[in-house]
């Protein structure tokens, strides 16, 4: 019937020759599952590196005064921590999920451009090395904060140049990855699966990938201008030559706000699979979910200056950005209500993926609400650059994106390894994370409200107690994360055999292939079954 059985992309034929083994297998692989695995491991390693840096930061903040590090080094840790977590840990983790799951979810044999996929991954390690190695060059790493604001970023040493190059490389990787994901989703779905029947994770990634190709080049442009201001005598941002440092902030946040949704949307996608599976119900309001994702993606380009209320933008501008930012809460609220409604009268069970999804739901909502508080110009003038902002974005990025990644990890691990993970260890991991996360970050709201500035290694006496609590929480959180490593290794080595569909409520094509998923799947487009649709 079908003439040949293979992939959509011509270069997939590489798979049919003699297979390289050992390290070369991983370096040359074009298989989406291998590449997905590499992305996930890479992101976990970066998560540990970035995590270690955050513990240096928190150790210094344990008590007032300077104890362990110099302010310059503190700033470098803070900058690298953020850059590594955003670009090295969270984003690659979700690209890893995309690589593994999108072809399985839409019934495609592989990603559309399998060889480019290999490239997207292998660009990451050099970028990671550039970033971390910059600590050791004269002058140290960039210490500007991840926002790289001039004039400081124009003045720093060569660590800054290395960060700029790392961002170029990471951006290239993300753009290539996004092109691949969009093409795969638009063109490789199994016949019969129209867009409005596609699993939600694919929808979130489709929009995310568009956000990436539209916003990453803007960041690349901004840092290139920084680079030429630093070395080639241009004055885009350097006031001495007639440039405007505030312009950098506009360009940065024009990228930066979509970026936060680049992190959040795939997390929404994962949760939209996990909650229905463990509620044993269809996702409530599929179409409204899709429209909400699209609306969030679109609006995210028009709210950037809520990060810039104190730069002296005119009153009308402040009002516009305030209302536009609040508007985003509507589609976001729609999603939260749909997740809750999905659980309504469902037959719920609380395995680890569901626990993480629920943790996500509760804590992300808190983060969304503090976001609304910050969106109010009059309030933000007080809270800008305080720990309140730090609390806000850790609620949305750690308890939001990271918890959702864990939900996805526990949910799909049986499919990847063929074994069930250790449920009690998984639950222990969840509860430790949940408790320590809140101990670490909830007090930061109080610190911010009381006026403690962010990005400062020392602080006034009255902030001492909450900082100590926060540091204890962050060490607890950090060390609990090592449990994942134990769980994953255990599951890879053995454990109860996983069935093709280990979760009775799970729907979707990915559960129709055996566990562990064979190296090649869906070489012939599978039959699309509407009963399996909607994630």
């Amino acid at each position, binding site marked *: *019937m*079908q*003439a*040949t059985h*293979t*992939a*959509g*992309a*011509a270069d997939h034929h590489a798979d049919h020759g003699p297979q390289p083994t050992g390290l070369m297998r991983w370096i040359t692989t074009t298989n989406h599952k291998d590449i997905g695995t590499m992305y996930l491991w890479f992101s976990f390693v970066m998560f540990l590196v970035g995590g270690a840096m955050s513990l240096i930061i928190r150790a210094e903040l344990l008590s007032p005064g300077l104890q362990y590090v110099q302010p310059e080094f503190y700033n470098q840790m803070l900058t690298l921590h953020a850059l590594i977590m955003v670009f090295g840990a969270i984003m690659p983790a979700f690209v890893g999920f995309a690589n593994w799951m999108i072809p399985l979810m839409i019934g495609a044999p592989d990603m*559309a*451009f399998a060889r480019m996929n290999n490239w997207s991954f292998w660009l990451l390690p050099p970028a990671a090395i550039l970033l971390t190695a910059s600590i050791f060059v004269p002058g140290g790493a960039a210490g500007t904060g991840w926002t790289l604001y001039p004039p400081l970023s124009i003045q720093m040493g060569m660590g800054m140049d290395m960060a700029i190059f790392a961002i170029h490389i990471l951006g290239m990787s993300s*753009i290539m990855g*996004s*092109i691949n994901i*969009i*093409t795969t989703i*638009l*063109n*490789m779905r199994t*016949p*019969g699966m129209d867009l409005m029947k596609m699993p939600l994770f694919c929808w979130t990634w489709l929009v995310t990938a568009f956000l990436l*190709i*539209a*916003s*990453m*080049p*803007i*960041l*690349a*442009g*901004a840092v290139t*201008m920084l680079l030429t201001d630093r070395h080639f005598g241009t004055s*885009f941002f350097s006031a001495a030559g007639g*440039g*405007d440092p505030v*312009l950098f902030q*506009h*360009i940065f946040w024009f990228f930066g706000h979509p970026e936060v949704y680049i992190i959040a949307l795939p997390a929404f996608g994962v949760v939209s699979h996990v909650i229905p599976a463990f509620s044993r119900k269809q996702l409530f309001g599929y179409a409204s979910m899709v429209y909400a994702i699209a609306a969030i993606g679109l609006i995210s380009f028009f709210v950037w200056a809520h990060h810039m209320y104190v730069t*002296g*933008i*005119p009153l009308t*501008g402040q009002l516009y950005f305030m209302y536009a930012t609040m508007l985003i809460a509507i589609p976001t609220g729609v999603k939260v209500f749909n997740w809750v409604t999905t659980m309504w009268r469902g037959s719920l069970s609380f395995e680890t993926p569901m626990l993480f999804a629920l943790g996500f739901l509760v804590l992300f909502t808190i983060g969304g609400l503090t976001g609304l508080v910050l969106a109010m110009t009059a309030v933000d003038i007080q809270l800008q650059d305080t720990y309140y902002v730090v609390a806000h974005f850790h609620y949305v990025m750690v308890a939001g994106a990271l918890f959702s990644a864990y939900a996805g990890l526990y949910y799909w691990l049986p499919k990847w390894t063929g074994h069930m993970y250790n449920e009690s260890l998984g639950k222990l991991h969840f509860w430790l994370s949940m408790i320590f996360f809140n101990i670490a970050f909830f007090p930061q709201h109080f610190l911010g409200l009381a006026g403690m500035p962010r990005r400062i290694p020392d602080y006034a006496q009255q902030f001492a107690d909450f900082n100590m609590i926060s540091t204890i929480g962050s060490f607890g959180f950090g060390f609990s994360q090592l449990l994942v490593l134990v769980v994953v290794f255990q599951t890879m080595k053995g454990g109860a055999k996983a069935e093709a569909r280990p979760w009775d409520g799970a729907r979707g094509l990915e559960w129709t292939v055996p566990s562990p998923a064979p190296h090649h799947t869906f070489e*012939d*487009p*599978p*039959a*699309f*079954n*509407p*009963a*399996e649709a909607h994630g």
Partner: protein
Amino acid sequence: MDGQYLNPKLSPEGIPPNIQEIRAAGNRRIVSILLAVVTSSFLFAYAQPPLYKAFCEWTGIYDIDRAQRVAESSIPARAVKLEFDANSHDGGLRFSPETASLSAKTGDIIHVTYRIENTRNTTVIGQAVPSYGPQHAGGYVKKLDCFCFKQQTFAPHEVREMPVVFVLERSLPDDVNTVTLSYTFFEVPAGSVTAPAKPGESRT
């Protein structure tokens, strides 16, 4: 669960045999569109500096002290007496204002000159530090230029005339009718500085 397709075209039998070629062609078309998006996005970043400038000029928001000017202009100008004074901690320096006092109006731009003479045979490095009488009037003296912004180096027996340009704000409290601007010249001890301050390292 199986075998129920919405329409027969969606069943595996309906999949065209040349699906690979169809997909490959589609992939190429999509990728060229996406590359165009990436390129225009990069160019968009570079279009920002001129666009930003044009936008700010068009809307007038580049004019960052307009609000203050508007607020100021609602207060009528009034006459004040200005007194100028100079002190030096060093007998080797003669330091004095060219004008001891003058009558002015708030809101006017005022130019005055100070004169300093190094009577010694050695180079003197130092800086003038301003003070105001009454003290709170200092907040209403907006200096546009002042020799006190920078450290100064005087060659042996050098005489120099140095300008101060300032505006006395109209919001000056009503009970202040005389403002004294006084400078004290502090010499930097020899050997404690190797070079005069770089331009830009200004101090008020």
